[in-house]
């Protein structure tokens, strides 16, 4: 296992994991306010398709990113309307949104299958310019990748250091108490979903515009559900999500690494490790009677909302 190979794994994980991390951050914001979005897969698909189409049509990727973000926000607002204003069951609404996303994304993207776009520029950090080309080529990341860590830090800061974040978390824990403290849970949930949608759109944009640079139906390949699992794994904490995203997306790359050292593990089995890990972590928590989930989210999972 050479340093180069290791670096290759890390680099691959970073590329693949950035979109996952953005989506996870968005879902964390939403779930912290008490809304779980099972339709995240659909949201990501629609954003990816819309962003890609906009990039292809306009010739500039930056417009595509913007469109993807807006699309994500709009999709989430549909969920918000159903869940907050109409008080619909969150799980069913999320799944309906997922199917909606399947269909809408296929339609938006139908003319753009196989289209070519100019992706985002790949840059190296100034200090690393002097590295030999092999290493250097693995460390050339696009701006969205560079932005993801600051974004995670920003999400953390907003959630834990601002009044808005405090209200949001209070709504996610105990909406009645938050209401007694003068907050409007419905409005806060809408705003949380809006922010979450923007972040999810950003993640989808990275996937279709910067990483894969194409569009195919169902191209997110389950990332939405992976993000939902990752939210649980990172205990609804933005900074822990960073590690988790690397872990979750590094699995396949890690398999290649193992193979090169002579260890034969099926990539598919390796793929299951993050989720089994999450389940394991949940079992351990459950045994200790301590629930890290936002309290009002539990009611969703029990069908009470």
């Amino acid at each position: 296992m050479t340093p180069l190979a290791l670096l290759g794994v890390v680099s691959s994980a970073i590329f693949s994991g950035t979109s996952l991390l953005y989506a996870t951050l968005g879902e964390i914001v939403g779930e912290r306010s008490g809304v779980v979005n099972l339709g995240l897969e659909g949201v990501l698909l629609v954003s990816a398709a819309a962003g890609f189409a906009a990039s292809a049509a306009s010739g500039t990727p930056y417009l595509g990113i913007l469109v993807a973000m807006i699309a994500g926000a709009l999709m989430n607002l549909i969920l918000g309307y159903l869940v907050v204003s109409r008080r619909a069951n969150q799980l069913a609404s999320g799944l309906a949104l997922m199917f909606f996303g399947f269909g809408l994304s296929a339609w938006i993207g139908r003319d753009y299958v196989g289209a070519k776009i100019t992706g985002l520029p790949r840059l190296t950090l100034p200090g690393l310019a002097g590295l030999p080309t092999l290493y250097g080529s693995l460390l050339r990341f696009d701006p969205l990748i560079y932005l993801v860590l600051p974004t995670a830090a920003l999400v953390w800061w907003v959630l834990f250091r601002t009044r808005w974040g405090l209200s949001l978390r209070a709504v996610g824990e105990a909406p009645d108490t938050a209401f007694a403290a003068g907050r409007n849970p419905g409005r806060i949930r809408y705003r949380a979903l809006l922010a979450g949608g923007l972040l999810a759109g950003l993640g989808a944009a990275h996937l279709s515009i910067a990483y894969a640079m194409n569009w195919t139906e169902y191209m997110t390949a389950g990332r939405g559900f992976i993000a939902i699992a990752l939210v649980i794994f990172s205990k609804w904490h933005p900074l822990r999500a960073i590690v988790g995203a690397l872990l979750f997306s590094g699995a396949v790359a890690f398999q290649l690494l193992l193979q090169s050292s002579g260890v034969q593990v099926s990539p598919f089995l390796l793929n299951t490790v993050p989720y089994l890990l999450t389940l394991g972590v949940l079992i351990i928590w459950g045994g200790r009677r301590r629930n890290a989930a936002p309290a009002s989210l539990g009611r969703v999972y029990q069908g009470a909302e």
Partner: protein
Amino acid sequence: MAKVVKFDIPVRTARLLGFLTGAVGMGRWMKAGAGTQGGETLPRLSLPVLQVRELCKRFPGVLANDDISLDVFSGEVHALLGENGAGKSTLVKCLYGYYQRDAGEILVDGIAAPLQSPEEARRHRIGMVFQNLTLIPALTVVENVALFLPDLPVVPSLTEIAARLTMLGERYRLQVDPWAQVQDLSIGQQQKAELLKLLMAEARLLILDEPSRVLVPHEVEGLFQVLRHLADDGLAVILITHKLEEALRAADRITVLRQGRVAGRLTRAEASEDKLIHLMFETELSNLSVDRSRPAELAAAPVLELERVSTAARGTAVGLYDIDLAVHAGEIVGVAGVSGNGQRELADLILGDLMCAAGTKRLLGRDVTRSAIGAIRRARVGYIPEDPLTMAAIPFLSVLENMAITRTEHYARNGGWQMDWPAVQREAEAAIQSLGFAFSLTGQARSLSGGNLQRMVLVRELSHEPRLVVACYPTRGLDARSTVAAQKALLAARAQGAGVLLISEDLEELFLLSDRLVVLFAGRIAGAFRPAETSVMAIGRLMTGAGEAHVVP
């Protein structure tokens, strides 16, 4: 045609009249002295923070607060003492705006305050600490406090808030780690945090509803010191309790409530255990003649034996300690006590819903310490829970189906592929009739009135000749006729050889029906008697912990 002339009293005149009435009333009250037990209280020269005048609150079927008048001054700890059902909680919820009073006035600093919502109460700087704390467990103390601060900046300085909290904490001996998550704190510390939250919002009148219920003994002492400091600093504190010890130790003045009315007012100097108990409990028992003949076989083998049984305390609930209890066939054992002292745990334990942490439980001689509920039910144990709607009934099933769920095996045919509904119907109707009740078996259980639901549970649990009946407050919420019918049903069960454990707060009922009487206080049996050998006073004393020198852990 006569013209109807309406007299519109101008608003200002009305207010003036009201004020005059209030002033006159206040004067009269002050002259009349404090309560029926004699003793003059010195009228304070300052205006009371809170004045309650002839407050009434009615719920369907019960007058919870009847003509209550009360004054609370700043700088005093004022205890509201009374049994459950005496009206303390209701009164205080009216003060906090949770309930709308039906009559009477509330004056804050001499000015009428409608107090129609908790927000209004908060605006009048009244703060209340409930039995269910309103802190958010997953947030830190600082965050909880910050959430309720009126002018929180967009980027609040939590360190600043924490510093203020620490300062306040030192001042009143309410030290709590501001950065701790509420769920990591002990209940006692959570209470402190709740108090701090109210103090940060500059409350002047604090109401605490049975705060010691969730505290361990040394924490209780700490709490009293805190209350003292708060009062010395000029706040007014209302302490609701049913424990004499607390009232005598912590309060400057005590108002005793009984059955919705003010039974008496005493200062600490005037008060004594005896006087308080006398005020809290009615001493005359009405003479209901009920047939109490016992079956020939007296004191047969015990149906239920609890030997040194203890349970672990769950959260804020009480744990049982070293319970020795036996119920024999053909006898009614009454369990007296204020609810919250272990009654629920005792009933759950016997049913098998709560496991013993120590000790042995025997049913008809067989060790059932580890048995499941199903096995205990099959041994013909009936269980009447304290809240039938949430604990014993399936709301969306029909009443008929509800009657069958405790005995599905008995009614199953063809290995379970069919249910013998005609038999269920037959037996249910017979049982209903024999008890003198009347309610429909069709229709969903949730459409039954509260009283009928109680009746349904009674019928179900008392039919089919149970060997042991555990009844928790079986006549709560029933009208007089049904109460008598239910009591007769319990006696009938006793007559056919069942052992009955009757948990009740109604001392009259307990004295009437029990062959033996035990008192449950703080999870222990505080005494066992025959009704003829004891008195309401003695039982009342034990129920309120007065029999003990200290609150024993």
